[in-house]
């Protein structure tokens, strides 16, 4: 049976506006049965950085990885493996901007048992996040499951 698609609420607060800053609220879609809560500093990873387990920088605090996928970059690994590698590198969650990679969603929807949240973002949700990254505006991200309204039961 087809697994229900769970949507993610992504709340973004600029560190310079903490603690009173009003978060920017965006949305995405959980994949791989990974729906859940996560929190951390937003950290961009280049798509090519998730290719091998070379000894690279270790982040000090909890962080959430964001990767803008590019269909023009040969996937050195299948996307599910890239997601697992990012989580193995210590990410509390992974966000994939799939605006430039139409096949990414299909590839990731089929996955099972991802240990922590993996979220796909598109359209303006993706643009807002990546514009923050481009301006190097340090931000804290909180990911939660979007509670869909329960329709009253009509007999």
């Amino acid at each position: 049976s087809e697994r229900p698609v769970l949507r993610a609420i992504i709340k973004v607060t600029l560190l310079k506006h903490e603690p009173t800053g009003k978060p920017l609220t965006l949305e995405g879609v959980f994949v791989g049965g990974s729906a859940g809560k996560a929190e951390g500093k937003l950290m961009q990873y280049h798509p090519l950085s998730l290719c091998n387990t070379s000894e690279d920088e270790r982040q000090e605090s909890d962080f959430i990885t964001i990767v803008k996928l590019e269909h023009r970059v040969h996937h050195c690994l299948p996307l599910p493996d890239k997601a697992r590698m990012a989580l193995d590198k210590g990410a509390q969650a992974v966000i994939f901007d799939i605006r430039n990679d139409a096949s990414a969603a299909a590839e990731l929807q089929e996955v099972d048992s991802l240990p922590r949240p993996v979220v796909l973002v598109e359209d303006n949700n993706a643009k807002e996040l990546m514009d923050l990254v481009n301006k190097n505006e340090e931000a804290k991200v909180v990911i939660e499951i979007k509670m869909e309204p329960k329709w009253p039961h009509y007999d």
Partner: protein
Amino acid sequence: HKPISGVSSGCQQGGCLTCSDYNGCLSCKPRFFMHLERIGMKQIGVCMTSCPPGFYGTRSPERNTCTKCRSECDSCFNKNFCTHCRAGFYLHLGKCQENCPEGMVRSDAQRECIL
């Protein structure tokens, strides 16, 4: 060649072949090395003729890349051959170690084991 939105093939950096507004270089021209540079929360691709200190170059048919040296090395030829050590480590036969073999002493100035 019409650049796809967000991906421009006309890259400003000399060695870039294709690049994107957010990821920087996506691929490099022949003989250039792809180095993934961390700038705060950003990580962008940069194409270089040689890798920066603390990294070594690896060539392959698909892509030439810069890879980080072992953590105890300041600079290296490759993963297994350091050329200069981090403070607190001493170079001997391409390895950075905390102690020197018998008969040798630690030179803090050069960070090497010497006779």
